[in-house]
Protein backbone atom coordinates (compact mmCIF):
# COMPACT_ATOMS: atom_id res chain seq x y z
CA UNK A 1 0.00 0.00 0.00
CA UNK A 2 2.87 2.37 0.86
CA UNK A 3 4.42 2.06 -2.59
CA UNK A 4 1.00 2.39 -4.10
CA UNK A 5 0.52 5.61 -2.20
CA UNK A 6 3.74 7.12 -3.52
CA UNK A 7 2.97 6.03 -7.05
CA UNK A 8 -0.56 7.37 -6.90
CA UNK A 9 0.73 10.61 -5.41
CA UNK A 10 3.12 11.17 -8.27
CA UNK A 11 0.50 10.16 -10.81
CA UNK A 12 -1.92 12.57 -9.23
CA UNK A 13 0.66 15.35 -9.34
CA UNK A 14 1.25 14.68 -13.03
CA UNK A 15 -2.49 14.73 -13.67
CA UNK A 16 -2.77 18.09 -11.93
CA UNK A 17 0.05 19.55 -14.03
CA UNK A 18 -1.65 18.27 -17.17
CA UNK A 19 -4.97 19.77 -16.11
CA UNK A 20 -3.34 23.10 -15.30
CA UNK A 21 -1.68 23.11 -18.72
CA UNK A 22 -4.91 22.39 -20.53
CA UNK A 23 -7.09 24.93 -18.74
CA UNK A 24 -5.55 28.13 -17.42
CA UNK A 25 -8.47 28.86 -15.10
CA UNK A 26 -8.08 25.44 -13.52
CA UNK A 27 -4.50 26.20 -12.58
CA UNK A 28 -5.77 28.82 -10.15
CA UNK A 29 -8.40 26.52 -8.67
CA UNK A 30 -5.88 23.71 -8.33
CA UNK A 31 -3.35 25.95 -6.60
CA UNK A 32 -5.96 26.87 -4.01
CA UNK A 33 -7.02 23.23 -3.71
CA UNK A 34 -3.43 22.09 -3.16
CA UNK A 35 -3.00 24.76 -0.52
CA UNK A 36 -6.14 23.64 1.27
CA UNK A 37 -4.92 20.06 0.98
CA UNK A 38 -1.73 21.10 2.80
CA UNK A 39 -3.81 22.60 5.60
CA UNK A 40 -5.96 19.48 5.75
CA UNK A 41 -2.84 17.35 6.26
CA UNK A 42 -2.65 19.17 9.59
CA UNK A 43 -6.26 18.29 10.34
CA UNK A 44 -5.40 14.70 9.49
CA UNK A 45 -2.63 14.58 12.10
CA UNK A 46 -5.03 15.79 14.77
CA UNK A 47 -7.71 13.36 13.61
CA UNK A 48 -5.19 10.60 14.16
CA UNK A 49 -5.33 11.57 17.83
CA UNK A 50 -9.12 11.61 17.66
CA UNK A 51 -9.26 15.39 18.01
CA UNK A 52 -11.30 17.57 15.66
CA UNK A 53 -10.37 21.21 15.42
CA UNK A 54 -13.24 23.38 14.31
CA UNK A 55 -11.01 26.42 14.18
CA UNK A 56 -8.04 25.66 11.97
CA UNK A 57 -9.04 28.28 9.44
CA UNK A 58 -7.44 30.56 12.02
CA UNK A 59 -3.98 29.45 10.89
CA UNK A 60 -4.85 29.73 7.22
CA UNK A 61 -5.98 33.29 7.90
CA UNK A 62 -2.79 33.96 9.88
CA UNK A 63 -0.66 32.89 6.93
CA UNK A 64 -2.72 34.90 4.47
CA UNK A 65 -2.80 38.07 6.58
CA UNK A 66 0.95 37.83 7.25
CA UNK A 67 1.41 37.88 3.49
CA UNK A 68 -0.95 40.84 3.17
CA UNK A 69 0.74 42.86 5.89
CA UNK A 70 4.31 42.06 4.88
CA UNK A 71 3.90 42.24 1.09
CA UNK A 72 4.31 46.04 0.80
CA UNK A 73 7.59 45.94 2.75
CA UNK A 74 9.05 42.67 1.49
CA UNK A 75 7.37 41.72 -1.77
CA UNK A 76 9.01 38.37 -2.37
CA UNK A 77 7.37 34.98 -2.11
CA UNK A 78 10.65 33.61 -0.74
CA UNK A 79 10.16 35.84 2.30
CA UNK A 80 6.37 35.89 2.55
CA UNK A 81 5.83 32.14 2.52
CA UNK A 82 8.21 31.33 5.40
CA UNK A 83 7.00 34.41 7.28
CA UNK A 84 3.37 33.31 7.00
CA UNK A 85 4.32 29.83 8.14
CA UNK A 86 6.41 31.20 11.03
CA UNK A 87 3.69 33.49 12.37
CA UNK A 88 1.13 30.72 12.16
CA UNK A 89 3.52 28.31 13.89
CA UNK A 90 4.18 30.75 16.70
CA UNK A 91 0.47 31.37 17.17
CA UNK A 92 -0.07 27.62 17.04
CA UNK A 93 2.52 27.08 19.74
CA UNK A 94 0.95 29.71 21.98
CA UNK A 95 -2.59 28.44 21.49
CA UNK A 96 -1.43 24.84 21.49
CA UNK A 97 0.07 25.18 24.97
CA UNK A 98 -3.43 26.06 26.10
CA UNK A 99 -5.68 23.78 24.03
CA UNK A 100 -3.52 20.65 24.22
CA UNK A 101 -4.83 20.22 27.77
CA UNK A 102 -8.32 19.64 26.39
CA UNK A 103 -9.96 16.80 24.50
CA UNK A 104 -12.92 16.18 22.25
CA UNK A 105 -15.66 18.77 22.39
CA UNK A 106 -13.60 21.16 24.55
CA UNK A 107 -10.69 20.90 22.16
CA UNK A 108 -12.93 21.47 19.16
CA UNK A 109 -14.90 24.33 20.70
CA UNK A 110 -11.87 26.13 22.10
CA UNK A 111 -10.31 26.13 18.67
CA UNK A 112 -13.59 27.38 17.27
CA UNK A 113 -13.82 30.13 19.86
CA UNK A 114 -10.26 31.33 19.31
CA UNK A 115 -10.71 31.39 15.56
CA UNK A 116 -13.91 33.38 16.00
CA UNK A 117 -12.06 35.86 18.22
CA UNK A 118 -9.49 36.34 15.48
CA UNK A 119 -12.24 36.59 12.88
CA UNK A 120 -14.02 39.25 14.93
CA UNK A 121 -10.79 41.18 15.42
CA UNK A 122 -9.98 41.07 11.72
CA UNK A 123 -13.39 42.63 11.12
CA UNK A 124 -13.25 45.04 14.06
CA UNK A 125 -9.79 46.53 13.67
CA UNK A 126 -10.87 48.34 10.55
CA UNK A 127 -8.02 50.86 10.49
CA UNK A 128 -5.51 48.05 10.52
CA UNK A 129 -7.18 45.33 8.47
CA UNK A 130 -9.66 47.24 6.26
CA UNK A 131 -12.38 45.10 7.83
CA UNK A 132 -14.50 42.96 5.54
CA UNK A 133 -13.14 44.73 2.46
CA UNK A 134 -9.92 42.93 3.10
CA UNK A 135 -6.40 43.71 1.98
CA UNK A 136 -5.13 43.52 -1.55
CA UNK A 137 -1.79 41.84 -2.19
CA UNK A 138 0.28 43.24 -5.04
CA UNK A 139 2.15 40.78 -7.25
CA UNK A 140 5.26 39.79 -5.26
CA UNK A 141 8.59 38.73 -6.71
CA UNK A 142 9.55 35.07 -6.75
CA UNK A 143 13.03 34.47 -5.32
CA UNK A 144 14.15 37.83 -6.61
CA UNK A 145 12.62 37.32 -10.04
CA UNK A 146 10.03 39.87 -11.10
CA UNK A 147 7.59 37.57 -12.90
CA UNK A 148 4.53 38.70 -14.80
CA UNK A 149 1.14 37.48 -13.63
CA UNK A 150 0.92 34.18 -15.58
CA UNK A 151 4.54 33.44 -14.72
CA UNK A 152 3.92 34.07 -11.04
CA UNK A 153 0.79 31.93 -11.14
CA UNK A 154 2.80 29.06 -12.53
CA UNK A 155 5.39 29.64 -9.86
CA UNK A 156 2.73 29.50 -7.14
CA UNK A 157 1.21 26.39 -8.68
CA UNK A 158 4.61 24.70 -8.75
CA UNK A 159 5.33 25.83 -5.19
CA UNK A 160 2.00 24.50 -3.98
CA UNK A 161 2.59 21.19 -5.76
CA UNK A 162 6.10 20.75 -4.39
CA UNK A 163 5.02 21.68 -0.87
CA UNK A 164 1.99 19.40 -1.13
CA UNK A 165 4.21 16.47 -2.08
CA UNK A 166 6.57 17.44 0.71
CA UNK A 167 3.79 17.76 3.27
CA UNK A 168 2.32 14.42 2.20
CA UNK A 169 5.68 12.65 2.45
CA UNK A 170 6.39 14.29 5.80
CA UNK A 171 3.01 13.30 7.21
CA UNK A 172 3.54 9.74 6.08
CA UNK A 173 6.92 9.57 7.83
CA UNK A 174 5.58 11.34 10.90
CA UNK A 175 2.60 9.05 11.30
CA UNK A 176 4.88 6.01 11.02
CA UNK A 177 7.31 7.43 13.59
CA UNK A 178 6.91 6.87 17.34
CA UNK A 179 5.41 10.36 17.61
CA UNK A 180 2.74 9.36 15.13
CA UNK A 181 2.10 6.08 16.90
CA UNK A 182 1.70 7.98 20.14
CA UNK A 183 -0.92 10.16 18.44
CA UNK A 184 -3.03 7.09 17.70
CA UNK A 185 -2.62 6.07 21.30
CA UNK A 186 -4.23 9.33 22.45
CA UNK A 187 -7.27 8.32 20.48
CA UNK A 188 -7.53 4.81 21.85
CA UNK A 189 -6.23 4.78 25.43
CA UNK A 190 -4.55 7.94 26.50
CA UNK A 191 -3.81 6.83 30.04
CA UNK A 192 -1.70 3.91 28.82
CA UNK A 193 0.51 6.44 27.09
CA UNK A 194 1.03 8.21 30.36
CA UNK A 195 1.86 4.93 32.08
CA UNK A 196 4.66 4.54 29.57
CA UNK A 197 6.05 7.87 30.69
CA UNK A 198 5.06 9.71 27.53
CA UNK A 199 3.34 13.05 27.94
CA UNK A 200 0.17 12.91 25.87
CA UNK A 201 -0.01 16.65 26.05
CA UNK A 202 3.38 17.05 24.42
CA UNK A 203 2.55 14.55 21.72
CA UNK A 204 -0.61 16.43 20.90
CA UNK A 205 1.14 19.78 21.14
CA UNK A 206 3.75 18.68 18.61
CA UNK A 207 1.06 17.61 16.16
CA UNK A 208 -0.86 20.80 16.82
CA UNK A 209 2.10 23.05 16.10
CA UNK A 210 2.82 21.14 12.88
CA UNK A 211 -0.80 21.51 11.87
CA UNK A 212 -0.60 25.27 12.53
CA UNK A 213 2.54 25.45 10.40
CA UNK A 214 0.82 23.63 7.55
CA UNK A 215 -2.18 25.94 7.90
CA UNK A 216 0.13 28.94 7.71
CA UNK A 217 1.83 27.60 4.57
CA UNK A 218 -1.60 27.06 3.02
CA UNK A 219 -2.72 30.53 3.98
CA UNK A 220 0.40 32.15 2.54
CA UNK A 221 -0.10 30.33 -0.76
CA UNK A 222 -3.80 31.26 -0.84
CA UNK A 223 -2.95 34.87 -0.01
CA UNK A 224 -0.42 35.13 -2.82
CA UNK A 225 -2.65 33.27 -5.28
CA UNK A 226 -5.97 35.04 -4.72
CA UNK A 227 -4.03 38.20 -3.87
CA UNK A 228 -6.85 39.51 -1.77
CA UNK A 229 -7.41 38.40 1.81
CA UNK A 230 -10.58 38.89 3.83
CA UNK A 231 -11.65 37.91 7.36
CA UNK A 232 -13.94 35.24 5.87
CA UNK A 233 -10.81 33.06 5.69
CA UNK A 234 -11.08 32.66 9.50
CA UNK A 235 -14.86 32.21 9.77
CA UNK A 236 -16.05 28.97 11.35
CA UNK A 237 -17.54 27.65 8.12
CA UNK A 238 -14.04 27.84 6.57
CA UNK A 239 -12.79 25.65 9.42
CA UNK A 240 -15.72 23.32 8.82
CA UNK A 241 -14.68 23.15 5.19
CA UNK A 242 -11.23 21.87 6.14
CA UNK A 243 -12.72 19.07 8.23
CA UNK A 244 -15.19 18.41 5.42
CA UNK A 245 -12.28 18.00 2.97
CA UNK A 246 -10.46 15.66 5.36
CA UNK A 247 -13.45 13.34 5.56
CA UNK A 248 -14.36 13.67 1.88
CA UNK A 249 -10.85 12.65 0.89
CA UNK A 250 -10.57 9.99 3.56
CA UNK A 251 -8.49 10.05 6.70
CA UNK A 252 -6.76 6.77 5.86
CA UNK A 253 -4.05 8.19 3.63
CA UNK A 254 -1.95 11.30 3.24
CA UNK A 255 -3.34 11.52 -0.29
CA UNK A 256 -6.85 11.91 1.08
CA UNK A 257 -6.57 15.64 1.81
CA UNK A 258 -5.55 16.42 -1.75
CA UNK A 259 -8.14 14.14 -3.30
CA UNK A 260 -10.69 15.78 -1.05
CA UNK A 261 -9.57 19.34 -1.71
CA UNK A 262 -9.55 19.00 -5.49
CA UNK A 263 -12.92 17.25 -5.47
CA UNK A 264 -14.36 19.83 -3.10
CA UNK A 265 -13.29 22.80 -5.23
CA UNK A 266 -14.48 21.18 -8.45
CA UNK A 267 -17.84 20.12 -7.02
CA UNK A 268 -18.36 23.60 -5.63
CA UNK A 269 -17.55 25.23 -8.95
CA UNK A 270 -19.64 22.91 -11.06
CA UNK A 271 -22.53 23.00 -8.58
CA UNK A 272 -22.30 26.79 -8.59
CA UNK A 273 -22.29 26.89 -12.38
CA UNK A 274 -25.20 24.46 -12.68
CA UNK A 275 -27.42 25.83 -9.91
CA UNK A 276 -25.97 29.05 -8.53
CA UNK A 277 -28.82 29.15 -6.03
CA UNK A 278 -28.36 25.78 -4.40
CA UNK A 279 -24.66 24.88 -4.53
CA UNK A 280 -24.59 24.54 -0.75
CA UNK A 281 -27.28 21.91 -0.88
CA UNK A 282 -25.33 19.91 -3.44
CA UNK A 283 -22.11 20.10 -1.42
CA UNK A 284 -24.03 19.09 1.69
CA UNK A 285 -25.60 16.20 -0.20
CA UNK A 286 -22.22 14.98 -1.40
CA UNK A 287 -20.84 15.13 2.13
CA UNK A 288 -23.84 13.32 3.53
CA UNK A 289 -23.60 10.59 0.89
CA UNK A 290 -19.88 10.09 1.52
CA UNK A 291 -20.33 9.76 5.27
CA UNK A 292 -23.33 7.44 5.06
CA UNK A 293 -22.19 5.24 2.22
CA UNK A 294 -18.41 5.59 2.01
CA UNK A 295 -17.11 6.54 5.44
CA UNK A 296 -13.55 5.89 4.27
CA UNK A 297 -13.86 8.82 1.90
CA UNK A 298 -12.58 8.92 -1.66
CA UNK A 299 -9.31 7.32 -0.62
CA UNK A 300 -11.22 4.50 1.00
CA UNK A 301 -13.03 3.86 -2.26
CA UNK A 302 -9.82 3.89 -4.29
CA UNK A 303 -8.01 1.69 -1.78
CA UNK A 304 -10.91 -0.73 -1.86
CA UNK A 305 -10.72 -0.94 -5.64
CA UNK A 306 -6.97 -1.48 -5.56
CA UNK A 307 -7.27 -4.22 -2.95
CA UNK A 308 -9.90 -5.99 -4.97
CA UNK A 309 -7.64 -5.79 -8.02
CA UNK A 310 -4.71 -7.11 -6.05
CA UNK A 311 -6.94 -9.87 -4.72
CA UNK A 312 -8.08 -10.79 -8.22
CA UNK A 313 -4.50 -10.81 -9.53
CA UNK A 314 -3.31 -13.19 -6.87
Amino acid at each position, binding site marked *: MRRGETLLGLLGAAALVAAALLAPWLKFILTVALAKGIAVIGILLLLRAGQ*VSFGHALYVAMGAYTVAFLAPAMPDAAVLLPAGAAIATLTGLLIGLFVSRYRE*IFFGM*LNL*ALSMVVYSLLEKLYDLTKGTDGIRVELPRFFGMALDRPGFEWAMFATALVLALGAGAFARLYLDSPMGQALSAIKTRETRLEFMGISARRVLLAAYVISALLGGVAGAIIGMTTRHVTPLLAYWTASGELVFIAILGGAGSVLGPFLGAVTFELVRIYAGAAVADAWQ*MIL*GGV*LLAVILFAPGGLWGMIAGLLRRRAGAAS
Partner: protein
Amino acid sequence: MAEWFGDNSGLLGLALLDGLASAGLIFLVAVGLNLVFGVLRIINVAHGSLYAIGAYAAASVGIVFASMGLPAWASLPALVVAAALVGGILGPLIERLVLRRIYGQEEVLQLLVTFALFMILEDVQKLIWGVQPVQHDQAMRLLGTYDVPFAGDVVPFTAYQLFVLPGVALVVLVGLAWFLRRTLTGRVIVAVTTDREAATAMGIDARRVFLLTFTFGAMLAALGGALSSPTGAIVPGIGAQTIVLSFAVVATAGLGQTEGAALTALMIGLGRSIAVYFEPELEVVVPYIIMVAVLLVRPQGLFGSTVARRI
Protein backbone atom coordinates in the same frame (compact mmCIF):
# COMPACT_ATOMS: atom_id res chain seq x y z
CA MET B 1 -14.35 52.12 41.43
CA ALA B 2 -17.21 52.78 43.83
CA GLU B 3 -17.51 56.22 42.35
CA TRP B 4 -17.72 54.76 38.84
CA PHE B 5 -20.56 52.49 39.91
CA GLY B 6 -22.31 55.43 41.55
CA ASP B 7 -22.07 57.48 38.35
CA ASN B 8 -23.16 54.66 36.10
CA SER B 9 -25.64 52.78 38.23
CA GLY B 10 -28.56 53.97 36.10
CA LEU B 11 -26.90 52.75 32.92
CA LEU B 12 -25.90 49.49 34.59
CA GLY B 13 -29.54 49.00 35.52
CA LEU B 14 -30.58 49.43 31.89
CA ALA B 15 -27.79 47.09 30.78
CA LEU B 16 -29.09 44.50 33.23
CA LEU B 17 -32.56 44.59 31.68
CA ASP B 18 -31.13 44.31 28.15
CA GLY B 19 -28.86 41.50 29.24
CA LEU B 20 -31.73 39.51 30.73
CA ALA B 21 -33.72 39.60 27.50
CA SER B 22 -30.84 38.44 25.35
CA ALA B 23 -29.74 35.86 27.93
CA GLY B 24 -33.23 34.31 27.72
CA LEU B 25 -32.87 33.69 24.01
CA ILE B 26 -29.30 32.48 24.23
CA PHE B 27 -30.31 30.02 26.94
CA LEU B 28 -33.23 28.59 24.97
CA VAL B 29 -31.10 27.81 21.95
CA ALA B 30 -28.08 26.57 23.88
CA VAL B 31 -29.96 24.37 26.32
CA GLY B 32 -31.38 22.28 23.48
CA LEU B 33 -27.96 21.87 21.96
CA ASN B 34 -26.53 20.96 25.33
CA LEU B 35 -29.23 18.40 26.02
CA VAL B 36 -28.68 16.70 22.67
CA PHE B 37 -24.95 16.70 23.20
CA GLY B 38 -25.28 15.29 26.70
CA VAL B 39 -27.36 12.33 25.55
CA LEU B 40 -26.35 11.63 21.95
CA ARG B 41 -22.75 12.94 22.22
CA ILE B 42 -23.29 14.70 18.92
CA ILE B 43 -22.49 18.37 18.43
CA ASN B 44 -25.42 19.25 16.26
CA VAL B 45 -24.35 21.97 13.83
CA ALA B 46 -27.81 21.82 12.25
CA HIS B 47 -29.20 23.14 15.53
CA GLY B 48 -28.70 26.62 14.04
CA SER B 49 -30.79 25.66 11.01
CA LEU B 50 -33.59 24.44 13.27
CA TYR B 51 -33.45 27.80 15.02
CA ALA B 52 -33.74 29.63 11.69
CA ILE B 53 -36.54 27.40 10.43
CA GLY B 54 -38.35 27.88 13.73
CA ALA B 55 -38.17 31.63 13.23
CA TYR B 56 -39.42 31.45 9.64
CA ALA B 57 -42.19 29.02 10.56
CA ALA B 58 -43.33 31.24 13.45
CA ALA B 59 -43.69 34.19 11.11
CA SER B 60 -45.59 32.04 8.61
CA VAL B 61 -47.91 30.56 11.24
CA GLY B 62 -48.48 34.04 12.65
CA ILE B 63 -49.38 35.36 9.23
CA VAL B 64 -51.73 32.41 8.61
CA PHE B 65 -53.38 32.90 12.02
CA ALA B 66 -53.83 36.60 11.30
CA SER B 67 -55.30 35.91 7.87
CA MET B 68 -57.74 33.42 9.45
CA GLY B 69 -59.05 36.32 11.46
CA LEU B 70 -57.89 34.97 14.81
CA PRO B 71 -57.57 37.63 17.52
CA ALA B 72 -54.24 39.32 18.15
CA TRP B 73 -53.47 37.32 21.30
CA ALA B 74 -53.31 34.20 19.15
CA SER B 75 -49.95 35.46 17.91
CA LEU B 76 -48.37 34.30 21.18
CA PRO B 77 -49.48 30.64 21.05
CA ALA B 78 -48.67 30.75 17.33
CA LEU B 79 -44.99 30.97 18.29
CA VAL B 80 -45.21 27.81 20.37
CA VAL B 81 -47.27 25.98 17.75
CA ALA B 82 -44.67 26.76 15.11
CA ALA B 83 -41.82 25.56 17.32
CA ALA B 84 -43.65 22.32 18.15
CA LEU B 85 -44.37 21.71 14.47
CA VAL B 86 -40.81 22.30 13.32
CA GLY B 87 -39.23 20.28 16.13
CA GLY B 88 -41.88 17.57 15.96
CA ILE B 89 -41.48 17.02 12.23
CA LEU B 90 -37.83 17.73 11.49
CA GLY B 91 -36.48 16.28 14.73
CA PRO B 92 -37.61 12.67 14.24
CA LEU B 93 -36.95 12.92 10.51
CA ILE B 94 -33.31 13.88 11.02
CA GLU B 95 -32.80 11.41 13.85
CA ARG B 96 -34.39 8.47 12.05
CA LEU B 97 -33.04 9.04 8.56
CA VAL B 98 -29.58 10.34 9.26
CA LEU B 99 -28.27 10.30 12.83
CA ARG B 100 -29.42 6.75 13.54
CA ARG B 101 -27.05 5.48 10.87
CA ILE B 102 -23.96 6.96 12.44
CA TYR B 103 -24.28 6.30 16.17
CA GLY B 104 -21.13 4.64 17.35
CA GLN B 105 -19.12 6.03 14.46
CA GLU B 106 -16.26 8.41 14.96
CA GLU B 107 -17.10 11.74 16.57
CA VAL B 108 -15.85 13.68 13.56
CA LEU B 109 -18.23 11.85 11.24
CA GLN B 110 -21.18 12.60 13.48
CA LEU B 111 -20.22 16.24 13.61
CA LEU B 112 -19.82 16.44 9.86
CA VAL B 113 -23.14 14.76 9.18
CA THR B 114 -24.84 17.59 11.00
CA PHE B 115 -22.63 20.07 9.12
CA ALA B 116 -23.91 18.53 5.88
CA LEU B 117 -27.48 18.85 7.13
CA PHE B 118 -26.77 22.46 8.01
CA MET B 119 -25.60 23.20 4.45
CA ILE B 120 -28.63 21.49 2.95
CA LEU B 121 -31.10 23.21 5.28
CA GLU B 122 -29.58 26.62 4.54
CA ASP B 123 -30.66 26.27 0.91
CA VAL B 124 -33.98 24.68 1.84
CA GLN B 125 -34.86 27.82 3.80
CA LYS B 126 -34.07 29.94 0.77
CA LEU B 127 -36.23 27.77 -1.46
CA ILE B 128 -39.20 28.03 0.90
CA TRP B 129 -39.02 31.57 2.25
CA GLY B 130 -36.92 33.39 -0.35
CA VAL B 131 -34.24 35.90 0.48
CA GLN B 132 -36.18 39.02 1.38
CA PRO B 133 -36.45 39.67 5.13
CA VAL B 134 -39.52 37.99 6.61
CA GLN B 135 -41.23 39.67 9.53
CA HIS B 136 -44.30 39.34 11.67
CA ASP B 137 -44.19 41.42 14.82
CA GLN B 138 -47.75 41.14 16.09
CA ALA B 139 -46.67 39.39 19.28
CA MET B 140 -44.29 42.22 20.15
CA ARG B 141 -46.76 44.99 19.34
CA LEU B 142 -49.57 43.21 21.17
CA LEU B 143 -47.90 43.63 24.55
CA GLY B 144 -46.81 47.22 24.03
CA THR B 145 -44.06 48.91 25.95
CA TYR B 146 -43.15 49.32 29.58
CA ASP B 147 -41.49 52.56 30.69
CA VAL B 148 -38.45 52.17 32.90
CA PRO B 149 -37.50 55.36 34.78
CA PHE B 150 -34.05 56.66 34.01
CA ALA B 151 -32.35 59.96 34.92
CA GLY B 152 -35.58 61.88 35.47
CA ASP B 153 -36.97 60.45 32.25
CA VAL B 154 -38.21 57.12 31.00
CA VAL B 155 -36.74 54.55 28.65
CA PRO B 156 -39.41 52.45 26.97
CA PHE B 157 -38.75 48.71 26.73
CA THR B 158 -40.99 46.30 24.86
CA ALA B 159 -42.90 44.22 27.37
CA TYR B 160 -42.24 41.26 25.11
CA GLN B 161 -38.50 41.49 25.62
CA LEU B 162 -38.70 42.52 29.23
CA PHE B 163 -41.10 39.82 30.38
CA VAL B 164 -41.87 37.15 27.76
CA LEU B 165 -38.32 36.19 26.76
CA PRO B 166 -36.81 35.86 30.25
CA GLY B 167 -40.14 34.41 31.45
CA VAL B 168 -40.19 31.60 28.91
CA ALA B 169 -36.53 30.91 29.58
CA LEU B 170 -37.27 30.61 33.29
CA VAL B 171 -40.24 28.32 32.65
CA VAL B 172 -38.10 26.08 30.44
CA LEU B 173 -35.31 26.04 32.99
CA VAL B 174 -37.57 25.10 35.90
CA GLY B 175 -39.66 22.72 33.80
CA LEU B 176 -36.60 20.97 32.48
CA ALA B 177 -35.11 20.59 35.94
CA TRP B 178 -38.37 19.12 37.18
CA PHE B 179 -38.68 16.84 34.17
CA LEU B 180 -35.13 15.53 34.42
CA ARG B 181 -35.25 14.93 38.19
CA ARG B 182 -38.81 13.92 38.88
CA THR B 183 -40.14 11.98 35.89
CA LEU B 184 -39.12 8.51 34.84
CA THR B 185 -38.29 9.55 31.28
CA GLY B 186 -36.28 12.43 32.62
CA ARG B 187 -34.31 10.20 34.93
CA VAL B 188 -33.65 7.82 32.09
CA ILE B 189 -32.26 10.71 30.08
CA VAL B 190 -30.02 11.72 32.96
CA ALA B 191 -28.87 8.12 33.31
CA VAL B 192 -27.91 7.93 29.65
CA THR B 193 -26.14 11.29 29.90
CA THR B 194 -24.11 10.21 32.90
CA ASP B 195 -23.14 6.72 31.82
CA ARG B 196 -24.48 5.39 28.57
CA GLU B 197 -22.96 1.93 28.86
CA ALA B 198 -24.27 1.29 32.33
CA ALA B 199 -27.69 2.66 31.41
CA THR B 200 -28.08 0.42 28.37
CA ALA B 201 -26.76 -2.51 30.36
CA MET B 202 -29.61 -1.95 32.77
CA GLY B 203 -32.06 -2.36 29.95
CA ILE B 204 -32.74 1.22 28.95
CA ASP B 205 -33.73 1.49 25.30
CA ALA B 206 -31.12 4.03 24.27
CA ARG B 207 -32.61 4.45 20.79
CA ARG B 208 -35.92 5.62 22.17
CA VAL B 209 -34.14 8.01 24.48
CA PHE B 210 -32.10 9.36 21.59
CA LEU B 211 -35.16 9.95 19.45
CA LEU B 212 -36.99 11.63 22.27
CA THR B 213 -34.08 13.83 23.28
CA PHE B 214 -33.25 14.89 19.76
CA THR B 215 -36.87 15.81 19.03
CA PHE B 216 -37.05 17.76 22.24
CA GLY B 217 -33.77 19.53 21.48
CA ALA B 218 -35.03 20.40 18.01
CA MET B 219 -38.19 21.85 19.52
CA LEU B 220 -36.14 24.02 21.87
CA ALA B 221 -34.02 25.29 18.97
CA ALA B 222 -37.17 26.09 17.00
CA LEU B 223 -38.70 27.73 20.06
CA GLY B 224 -35.67 29.99 20.37
CA GLY B 225 -36.04 30.97 16.73
CA ALA B 226 -39.79 31.41 17.06
CA LEU B 227 -39.45 33.66 20.10
CA SER B 228 -36.81 35.77 18.37
CA SER B 229 -38.96 36.29 15.29
CA PRO B 230 -41.35 39.01 16.58
CA THR B 231 -38.53 41.42 17.41
CA GLY B 232 -36.35 41.04 14.37
CA ALA B 233 -36.27 40.37 10.68
CA ILE B 234 -35.54 36.85 9.52
CA VAL B 235 -32.98 36.65 6.74
CA PRO B 236 -30.80 33.93 5.23
CA GLY B 237 -27.76 33.20 7.38
CA ILE B 238 -29.17 33.75 10.88
CA GLY B 239 -28.66 30.08 11.70
CA ALA B 240 -24.92 30.20 11.07
CA GLN B 241 -24.48 33.05 13.52
CA THR B 242 -26.66 31.58 16.23
CA ILE B 243 -24.93 28.24 16.30
CA VAL B 244 -21.45 29.55 17.04
CA LEU B 245 -22.70 31.37 20.10
CA SER B 246 -24.50 28.25 21.29
CA PHE B 247 -21.30 26.23 20.91
CA ALA B 248 -19.57 28.66 23.21
CA VAL B 249 -22.36 28.33 25.78
CA VAL B 250 -22.30 24.52 25.71
CA ALA B 251 -18.56 24.26 26.17
CA THR B 252 -18.56 26.87 28.93
CA ALA B 253 -21.51 25.31 30.72
CA GLY B 254 -20.27 21.76 30.92
CA LEU B 255 -21.77 18.89 28.99
CA GLY B 256 -25.46 18.29 29.43
CA GLN B 257 -25.70 20.84 32.23
CA THR B 258 -29.00 22.73 32.15
CA GLU B 259 -28.19 25.04 35.03
CA GLY B 260 -24.73 25.60 33.62
CA ALA B 261 -26.28 26.68 30.32
CA ALA B 262 -28.53 29.11 32.17
CA LEU B 263 -25.69 30.66 34.13
CA THR B 264 -23.48 30.90 31.04
CA ALA B 265 -26.25 32.48 29.00
CA LEU B 266 -26.75 35.01 31.77
CA MET B 267 -23.04 35.84 31.88
CA ILE B 268 -22.85 36.21 28.12
CA GLY B 269 -26.06 38.23 27.87
CA LEU B 270 -25.04 40.61 30.64
CA GLY B 271 -21.43 40.77 29.50
CA ARG B 272 -22.48 41.76 26.02
CA SER B 273 -24.97 44.40 27.06
CA ILE B 274 -22.56 45.96 29.54
CA ALA B 275 -19.95 45.99 26.77
CA VAL B 276 -22.33 47.87 24.47
CA TYR B 277 -22.69 50.58 27.11
CA PHE B 278 -19.12 51.02 28.16
CA GLU B 279 -16.84 49.48 25.52
CA PRO B 280 -18.93 48.64 22.42
CA GLU B 281 -15.95 47.43 20.40
CA LEU B 282 -15.56 44.48 22.78
CA GLU B 283 -19.12 43.24 22.42
CA VAL B 284 -18.52 40.55 19.79
CA VAL B 285 -15.63 38.89 21.60
CA VAL B 286 -17.24 38.86 25.06
CA PRO B 287 -18.74 35.34 24.74
CA TYR B 288 -15.41 33.86 23.70
CA ILE B 289 -13.47 35.67 26.40
CA ILE B 290 -15.89 34.31 28.99
CA MET B 291 -15.54 30.83 27.55
CA VAL B 292 -11.75 30.84 27.50
CA ALA B 293 -11.60 32.33 31.00
CA VAL B 294 -13.98 29.72 32.41
CA LEU B 295 -12.20 26.80 30.75
CA LEU B 296 -8.83 28.01 31.98
CA VAL B 297 -10.07 27.73 35.55
CA ARG B 298 -12.46 24.80 35.11
CA PRO B 299 -11.43 22.58 32.19
CA GLN B 300 -14.69 20.59 32.42
CA GLY B 301 -16.81 23.69 32.11
CA LEU B 302 -18.71 25.49 34.85
CA PHE B 303 -20.86 22.58 35.99
CA GLY B 304 -19.14 19.67 34.31
CA SER B 305 -17.95 16.83 36.47
CA THR B 306 -14.56 15.25 35.99
CA VAL B 307 -14.84 12.47 33.44
CA ALA B 308 -13.47 9.15 34.60
CA ARG B 309 -10.39 8.37 32.60
CA ARG B 310 -10.41 5.33 30.41
CA ILE B 311 -7.67 2.85 30.92
